[in-house]
C-alpha cells in the first residue's frame, strides 16, 4: 500500500506538468510548423545567401572560399543574364495583358445565361489543371515545322502555303510562348473576373439605368471601378507567376534560338543545375527575388490603397 507521501508527490508532479503544459501549449502547437518553416524555408534561404558570397562552383573547386560580391558581379558581366531580365519583364507584361484582356472578355460573355454555359465554363477552366511542361510539349508538337499542323491550318485559312518556323524564328518564338501561356492562364483571369463580376449587385446597374446611363457608361462607371481591386489581385498573382516562367520555355524553345527566349528562371536553372555554377546561380536568384519583392510590394500597396482610403 502506498504511503501518503508517495501518493502526493506524483499528484504534485502531474499538477506541475499540467501547469507547464498550460503555459507552453501555444508554443507546442506551433512548434511543428516552425520547424517546417525553419527547415524548408529559412535554412535554404540562409544557405542560398551564404552560397552567393562564396565560391560554390563545380568547375572551380568545392572548397568554398569567401568571394564577396564576385558572384553578383559575374552575373551582371554576363550579357545573357541582363538579356534574360528584359525578356522576362517583356514576356510577363505582354502575357499578363493578353490574359487579362481575353479573360475579361470571356467573363463578360459568360455573365449572360445561354444554353451550354456551364459546360463551356468547365471547358475553359481545364487548361488550368494541366502541367505547364505538358502545355509546352503540346504546343511544340502543334507549332513545330514541318510536322506540326499549325502551318497547314493557316495555309487552309489563307489559301496559300504557310511556312512559318514558330519555334525558331523571331518574333514567332515570342508569339508562340505568349500563345501557349495565354492558352493555359487565361482561364485563371476568367475565373477570378467572373467571380468579381457576379459579385457586383444588380441594384447598382438598375440605379444607373434609372439615372439614364447608357450600357457603355454603366460599364465604365459601375463595372470597372468595382472590379478594379479584383483585377489588381489577378494581375498581381499572374505577374509574379509569369516572372518565374520556366516550364514552357524548357519544353517549347529551350531558350532558343540562341538565347533569344532565355528568361531569368531558365538562365538560372542552366547556370545552377546544368553547369553547376551554384554561387552565381544563387546570387542571380537572390537578385531576382529582390526585384520581384519590390514589384510585388508596389502592386500590393496599390491593392490596399482603396481599403486604406
Amino acid at each position, binding site marked *: 500500500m502506498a504511503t501518503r507521501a508517495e501518493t502526493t508527490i506524483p499528484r504534485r508532479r502531474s499538477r506541475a506538468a499540467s501547469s507547464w503544459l498550460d503555459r507552453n501549449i501555444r508554443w507546442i502547437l506551433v512548434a511543428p510548423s516552425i520547424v517546417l518553416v525553419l527547415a524548408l524555408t529559412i535554412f535554404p534561404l540562409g544557405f542560398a545567401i551564404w552560397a552567393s558570397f562564396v565560391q560554390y562552383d563545380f568547375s572551380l573547386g*568545392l572548397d568554398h572560399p569567401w568571394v564577396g560580391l564576385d558572384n553578383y558581379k*559575374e552575373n551582371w558581366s554576363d550579357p545573357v543574364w541582363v538579356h534574360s531580365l528584359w525578356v522576362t519583364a517583356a514576356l510577363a507584361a505582354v502575357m499578363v495583358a493578353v490574359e487579362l484582356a481575353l479573360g475579361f472578355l470571356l467573363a463578360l460573355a459568360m455573365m449572360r445565361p445561354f444554353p451550354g454555359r456551364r459546360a463551356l465554363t468547365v471547358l475553359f477552366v481545364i487548361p488550368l489543371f494541366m502541367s505547364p511542361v505538358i502545355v509546352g510539349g503540346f504546343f511544340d508538337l502543334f507549332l513545330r515545322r514541318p510536322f506540326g499542323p499549325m502551318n497547314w491550318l493557316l495555309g487552309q485559312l489563307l489559301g496559300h502555303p504557310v511556312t512559318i*518556323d514558330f519555334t*525558331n524564328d523571331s518574333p514567332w518564338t515570342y508569339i508562340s510562348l505568349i500563345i501557349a501561356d495565354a492558352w493555359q492562364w487565361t482561364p485563371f483571369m476568367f475565373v477570378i473576373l467572373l467571380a468579381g463580376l457576379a459579385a457586383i449587385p444588380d441594384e447598382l446597374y438598375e440605379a444607373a439605368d434609372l439615372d439614364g446611363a447608357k450600357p457603355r457608361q454603366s460599364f465604365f462607371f459601375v463595372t470597372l471601378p468595382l472590379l478594379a481591386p479584383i483585377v489588381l489581385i489577378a494581375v498581381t498573382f499572374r505577374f509574379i507567376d509569369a516572372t518565374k516562367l520556366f516550364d514552357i520555355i524548357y519544353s517549347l524553345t529551350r531558350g*532558343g534560338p540562341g538565347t533569344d527566349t532565355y528568361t531569368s528562371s531558365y538562365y538560372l536553372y542552366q547556370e545552377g543545375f546544368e553547369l553547376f555554377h551554384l554561387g552565381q546561380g544563387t546570387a542571380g536568384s537572390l537578385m531576382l527575388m529582390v526585384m520581384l519583392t519590390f514589384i510585388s510590394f508596389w502592386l500590393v500597396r496599390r491593392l490596399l490603397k482603396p481599403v486604406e482610403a
Partner: protein
Amino acid sequence: MSEDIHEGFDGAEPSLFGTPIGRKDFLFDSAKLLAAAAAAGPFYLAAEQADAAIEASTSLTAGDPIALSAVNAAKQFKGITLTKTNESGLQALDDHNFTGPLWEKLTGIKVKVIESPFAQIYSKVIAEHIAGTGGIDVIDGSPVWMPDFAEQKVIDPVDSYISKYKAQATLNDYHPLYRALMKYKGKTWGFFDDGDVWNLYYRKDIFGNAKLKAAYKAKFKRDLRVPRTWDEFTETSQFITDQMAPKVYGGGEGRGLGNPGNQFYFFQQFRARGGRFFNPSTMKAEINNEIGVKAMQSIMAEVKASAPGIEKLSFVDSWVNWLQGKTAMIYAWPPTGRISENYAQRDKAFNFLPKSKIVGKVGYALMPQLNGEHAGSFVKMVSADSKNKEAAYLFAQWATSPSISLQRVQLPYTLRDAYRISHYKSKQFRSRWPAAGEYLKALADAANNAVLDPIMTGAADYANALDRAMTAIYAGKDIQAGLDDTAKEWDRITNKLGVAKQKASYALFLKLPGSTSQNTVAKRGQAVKISA
C-alpha cells in the same frame, strides 16, 4: 589484349557448328532453333548473346579471363546493389535487360540504374557528389567530363584495381583512340565503353543512278562521287536536293538545340579544316577566325540543302527521314549503319523507328576531309563517393571485357558501338548482315582519323555556349557576329576558370590523339588496319 581472348569468343561458333552431325539431327536441331526463335520473338538475338556472355564469364576453357576474374572476385560482394548512371531510353535498356540481370545472375550483385538525358548525367553526378550521398557507384559518363570529375574528386583512379586483377592486357585490345580516353594526367579513370565516331552513310543506289550522274557531270564537268571534302559535300548535297526534293534531300542532320548538340558539327568541320579551339599560349578562343567562319558557312549550306525544319529536329528525327529513304547522305553515330539494315528494328524497343526502306542500299565512308567527330561516348568510371568501389570496378571490368562488350555492342536495342579491335574483327558481328564487315572496317577507319570533342576542364560550358550560338545563326544571326560573341563567351569562361589552369588543361588535351586533324591516330602512325 591478347588475341586469344577474342579469338576464343569467336571460336565458340565453330565448336557449336563444327561438330559433324547427321541430316536427321541437323533438321531436328534447325526445327528446334526456329521454334525457339519464333517463341522468343525479338528477344531471340539477345538471348543468344546472353548465353554467349554467360559462357564467357563462367567457362574455364572457352571463357574470357578478364570477365572470369571480375565475376569470381565480385562474388564476395554478393547481396549488395550497385547503382549506376546511364542515358535514359535505349542506352539504359542494356543495364535493364542485359548487363544488369546477367551480372546479378553471375555474382548475386544487383544493378540499379539512374536514368537521365545524356547532358543531365553530368549534373546528376555532380549533385550527388556535392550532397555526398554515395548514391552512385558506377558513373557511365562522357570522357569529356573526365577532367572535371577527376579534378574535383568525383571519380577515383582505377590503376590499383587494374594491377590487382591483372587487367592491363585488356587495354591493348582497345582502339588506340579510345585507349587514350581512359587516361587523364597519367592515371586511368575507367574503362572506355562506346565507340562514338561519326561516319558518312550514303545511298549507293542514288550515287549509282545513271540519270543523276549524267546531270551532275553536265553541271560540274566531273563524275558524281561520295564527297571527299566539305565543299564537295555541300555542293553534292545541294545538287541532290535540287534534283530530287521533296522526295529525297541531299543531307539531313538534326540541328535542334542540345539534341544532339550543334557544337559537334562545328567541332568536326573546324578541325577538319585545320582549326584549333584556342591559342595554346594565350588561351584566346580561335573559333571565330577565318576557318571558323568557313566551317559555319559550310554548315549553313548543309542546312539549306536539307529537308525543311531541320533546325528543330533531333538526331532521331533525322534517322526517321533517312530510314524512309528521304535523305541521300547522313553523317551520324554508328547505330545508323545497324538501323539501316533493320538489324536494330528486330527488337520491339526500336518500334519508335520505322522499318528501313534502304536495306542493302547503304554505303559507308569516312567523313569529308577524313576527320569524323568523336561525339559524346561513354566511359565506365568508379565514383569516389561509392561505398562499394571494388565491386563497382569489377562490374566495369566485366561489362567492358572483350567478350561481354562484344555481345553488348551487338545488342539490337542499345546504342553502344564497337570500340575494341576484337569487335572489329569479330566473325560473329561480321555475320549479322551482308555488309557488316565493311561497316566494322568503316568504324575502325573512322576511329583512326577521328577528332575529339574538347576533353578539358570547362568543356560543358564551352559546348553549351557554342550550341546555343549556332541555333541563333540558324535563325538568321550573322555568322561572324555569332562566332565573335561565342569567342567572347569562351574567353569569359576561360578567365573565370583561370587562364593558367585552362592553358594546362588544353595542353593536356592537345597531347591526345584526335585533338586536331594533324594529330589523329592515323597521323601518328598508330592506325588499326581492319579488312572488310
